[in-house]
C-alpha cells in the first residue's frame, strides 16, 4: 500500500529519498558477500542475517512507495523466512535465484536514483521463487553441471554483525566543505612559503615550515575521511559475475585482492560503470568457452581478478582475466577494415599503440554492447571516465594468456598535483598524472620525419610540439634553434606519448583546482584555474583537448 509522504516538504522528501537510496545500496553491498558465504557455509545465523537485511529493505522501500522493490524484497524475505523455519533447504538453484534477485534490486535502486520509478522485469524471478518455495527443496547440495562460484577476497572477511564501534556518520557535503577549506589553507600556505623564502627571515621560515607540516597532516586526515575500502565497490560485482557467467555458460571464478585498500568515495562511485564494462568484456570476449579452454589446456573455470593496491598518492586497480588475450595484429586489421586507418598507418603503429586502438570510439568489435543498467557503453567511454577522474589506463596482454587492464587513479580529486612551466611570459600548469618525464633538448636531438619535428626517445619517434606556437604566443628568442638547450615535457596522450617544448620548468606544486565558471569553462584545453604562490592565477591545461581541438 503506497504511503503518503505529502506531509513533508520537497526538500525533506528529497532527503528522505537520498537516505533510502544510500541505505538500500549498503544493504545490497552486504548481500552479495553474505550469499557467497551462505553458499559455502550455510548456517542459521547467515540465513537470519540475510532475512533481516531484505526485511529492512522491504520496509524502507514501502515508505518510499517503491512498490516493485518492495515486492521483490518481500518475496525474498518470504523465501528466507522459509529457509529460517526449515521449510526450505539451501540449494545452488536457490542461491542462484537469490543472486539474481540482488542484481535486479540493484538495477531498480539505480533506476530510482536516476529519478525513475525503480522498476525492472521481475515477474519471472518472482514466479521462480514461488515455485522454489512450493517445491520445498530438500536440504542437500546437489552438484549441477556447470558450477559457478564466486570467492571472497583473499584477506580475512569483514565481520557480519555490527559491533559497537565508536564511529560517526557524517554527511558527504560536510566532508567536501572541509576538504575545500583545507584546499584554501594549502593555497595560503603556498603563498606564505613564497614570502618566507623571499624575506629570508629565520623565524618566518621555521614557522612556515611548521605550517607545511601541519597542513600536510590535516590534508591527509581530511582525505582519509573521504576514503572507503575499495571492497565496497568490488563486492558489488560478485552477483554480476555470477549471473553473467551463468548466462553466458562460461563458469568463472572472481577473486578479489586488496579489498581493504582505501579509495576516494566519489572516485569509487564513478568507477562502477567502467569496471562493470571491463568485467563484462572479460567474461564476454576475454574468456573462451569451456570447450575452447579445455582444448587449450586451461582449467575449464575461467579466472577473473579484481585487485587494488595503493602506491603513494595513487591507487592501482587491475581487472584481469586468463582468457584469450588481445592480438595487436587483429586490431590493426579491424582498424583498416573499418576505415579508421589506412593499411600503411596501421602498419606504422607499434604493438602497444595497436592494442590501444581498442579505446577509439566506434572500434568495438561487437554490436550494441549495453551495460547492465541498459546504457550503451564502449571502451572509449571507459577511457573517458578514467581520464575525467585524472586517471590513466594501460593494457597488459598476451595472446592466449589473458588480459589485464591496469588503471591508475588519484587518491583524491580535490587537490591536483601539477607541473608548472613557463611559456613566454605566462605560467601554465600541467596535471602531473599526464606527465611521463621531463627533458632538456639540444638542437641536435630534434629531427624531422615526414616534415614534422620528432624526438627519438628510447628508439621511438615522438611528435614534438612547441607550446608557444600552440598557445598562440610569439616564439621566445632563447629557443633550441639558437643552440641553447630547451626544456621539454613528455606527456601521455591517448594515442601515445608526445613531447611539449616549453621555455622553463618551474617545478611541481600541489594546487587546489578551481573550476572556471560559465564564461570561460567551455574553452577546450583548459581544465580549470589555480592560484600560484605569488597570488597570480594560472590556467591548468588539458593537453589532450588542447592538441586535438
Amino acid at each position, binding site marked *: 500500500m503506497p504511503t503518503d509522504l505529502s*506531509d513533508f516538504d520537497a526538500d525533506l522528501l528529497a532527503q528522505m529519498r537520498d537516505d533510502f537510496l544510500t541505505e538500500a545500496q549498503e544493504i545490497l553491498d552486504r548481500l552479495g558477500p553474505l550469499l557467497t558465504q551462505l553458499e559455502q557455509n550455510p548456517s542459521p545465523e547467515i540465513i537470519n542475517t540475510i532475512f533481516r537485511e531484505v526485511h529492512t529493505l522491504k520496509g524502507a522501500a514501502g515508505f518510499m512507495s517503491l512498490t516493485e522493490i518492495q515486492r521483490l524484497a518481500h518475496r525474498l524475505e518470504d523465501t528466507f523466512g522459509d529457509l529460517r523455519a526449515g521449510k526450505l533447504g539451501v540449494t545452488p538453484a536457490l542461491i542462484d535465484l537469490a543472486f539474481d534477485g540482488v542484481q535486479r534490486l540493484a538495477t531498480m535502486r539505480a533506476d530510482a536514483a536516476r529519478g525513475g520509478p525503480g522498476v525492472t522485469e521481475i515477474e519471472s524471478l518472482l514466479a521462480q521463487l514461488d515455485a522454489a518455495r512450493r517445491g520445498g527443496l530438500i536440504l542437500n547440495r546437489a552438484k549441477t553441471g556447470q558450477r559457478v562460484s564466486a570467492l571472497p577476497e583473499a584477506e580475512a572477511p569483514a565481520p557480519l554483525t555490527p559491533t559497537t564501534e565508536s564511529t560517526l556518520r557524517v554527511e558527504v557535503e560536510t566532508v567536501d566543505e572541509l576538504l575545500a577549506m583545507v584546499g584554501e589553507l594549502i593555497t595560503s600556505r603556498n603563498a606564505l612559503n613564497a614570502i618566507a623564502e623571499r624575506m629570508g627571515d629565520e623565524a618566518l621560515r621555521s614557522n612556515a615550515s611548521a605550517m607545511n607540516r601541519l597542513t600536510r597532516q590535516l590534508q591527509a586526515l581530511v582525505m582519509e575521511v573521504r576514503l572507503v575500502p575499495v571492497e565496497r565497490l568490488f563486492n558489488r560485482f560478485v552477483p554480476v559475475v555470477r549471473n553473467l557467467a551463468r548466462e553466458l555458460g562460461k563458469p568463472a571464478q572472481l577473486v578479489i585482492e586488496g579489498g581493504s585498500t582505501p579509495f576516494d568515495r566519489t572516485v569509487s562511485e564513478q568507477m562502477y560503470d567502467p569496471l562493470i564494462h571491463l568485467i563484462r568484456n572479460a567474461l564476454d570476449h576475454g574468456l573462451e568457452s569451456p570447450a575452447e579452454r579445455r582444448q587449450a589446456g586451461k582449467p575449464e573455470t575461467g579466472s577473473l581478478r579484481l585487485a587494488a593496491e595503493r602506491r603513494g598518492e595513487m591507487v592501482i586497480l587491475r581487472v584481469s582475466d586468463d582468457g584469450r588475450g588481445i592480438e595487436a595484429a587483429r586490431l590493426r586489421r579491424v582498424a583498416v577494415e573499418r576505415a579508421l586507418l589506412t593499411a600503411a598507418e596501421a602498419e606504422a603503429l607499434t604493438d602497444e599503440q595497436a592494442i590501444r586502438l581498442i579505446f577509439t570510439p566506434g572500434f568495438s568489435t561487437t554490436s550494441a554492447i549495453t551495460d547492465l543498467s541498459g546504457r550503451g557503453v564502449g571502451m572509449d567511454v571507459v577511457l573517458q571516465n578514467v581520464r575525467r577522474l585524472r586517471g590513466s589506463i594501460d593494457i597488459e596482454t598476451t595472446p592466449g594468456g589473458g588480459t589485464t587492464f591496469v588503471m591508475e587513479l588519484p587518491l583524491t580529486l580535490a587537490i591536483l598535483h601539477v607541473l608548472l612551466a613557463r611559456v613566454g611570459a605566462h605560467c601554465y600548469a600541467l596535471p602531473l598524472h599526464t606527465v611521463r618525464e621531463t627533458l632538456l633538448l639540444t638542437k641536435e636531438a630534434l629531427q624531422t620525419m615526414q616534415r614534422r619535428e620528432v624526438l627519438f626517445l628510447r628508439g621511438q619517434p615522438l611528435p614534438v610540439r612547441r607550446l608557444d606556437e600552440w598557445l598562440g604566443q610569439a616564439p621566445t628568442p632563447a629557443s633550441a634553434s639558437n643552440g641553447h638547450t630547451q626544456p621539454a615535457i613528455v606527456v601521455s596522450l591517448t594515442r601515445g606519448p608526445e613531447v611539449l617544448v616549453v621555455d622553463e620548468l618551474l617545478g611541481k606544486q600541489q594546487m587546489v583546482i578551481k573550476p572556471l565558471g560559465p564564461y570561460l569553462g567551455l574553452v577546450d584545453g583548459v581544465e580549470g584555474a589555480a592560484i600560484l604562490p605569488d597570488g597570480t592565477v594560472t590556467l591548468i591545461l588539458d593537453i589532450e583537448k588542447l592538441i586535438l581541438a
Partner: protein
Amino acid sequence: MQTILVVDDSDSIRKLLEVTLKTRGFMVVSASDGQEALETLERYTDRDSVGFNAVVLDINMPRMDGLSLLITARARPEWQTLPILMLTTEGRDEDRERALALGATDYMVKPFKPSELVMRVMALLAT
C-alpha cells in the same frame, strides 16, 4: 516537552520517524536495536520517573529484537505501564498477535502515513 524513544534498525526509517515526530513538537531519541534501546531506557530511568513518555518499537532488529525488548521491558516494574507502539509489517499476523500478547500497548502496520504515526502516538499519550 514529551520525549519519544524510536527504535528501528533501518537508518532511513529511523530518520523518517524522527523527523515526523520532531516536526510535531516531540523530543526524539533513537536507537538502532533492542540492546541499544534497553541501555538508553536504563540511562534515563531513575527511581522517580522513566525518561520517555512513549516508545515506538520495530520488531525485526539485530542483537535484540523488538519482542525480546518488549518482554524485558514489561518484566521491570518501572516500565510496566510505559506506552509502547509496536511497528509490524503487513502479512505477519503472528507478530502482531505476539506483540499484543506480550504487552504492547498498540501496533501500526508498516508502511504507514507519517501523520497517522503522530495520531497514534498522541492517542497513546492521552491514556
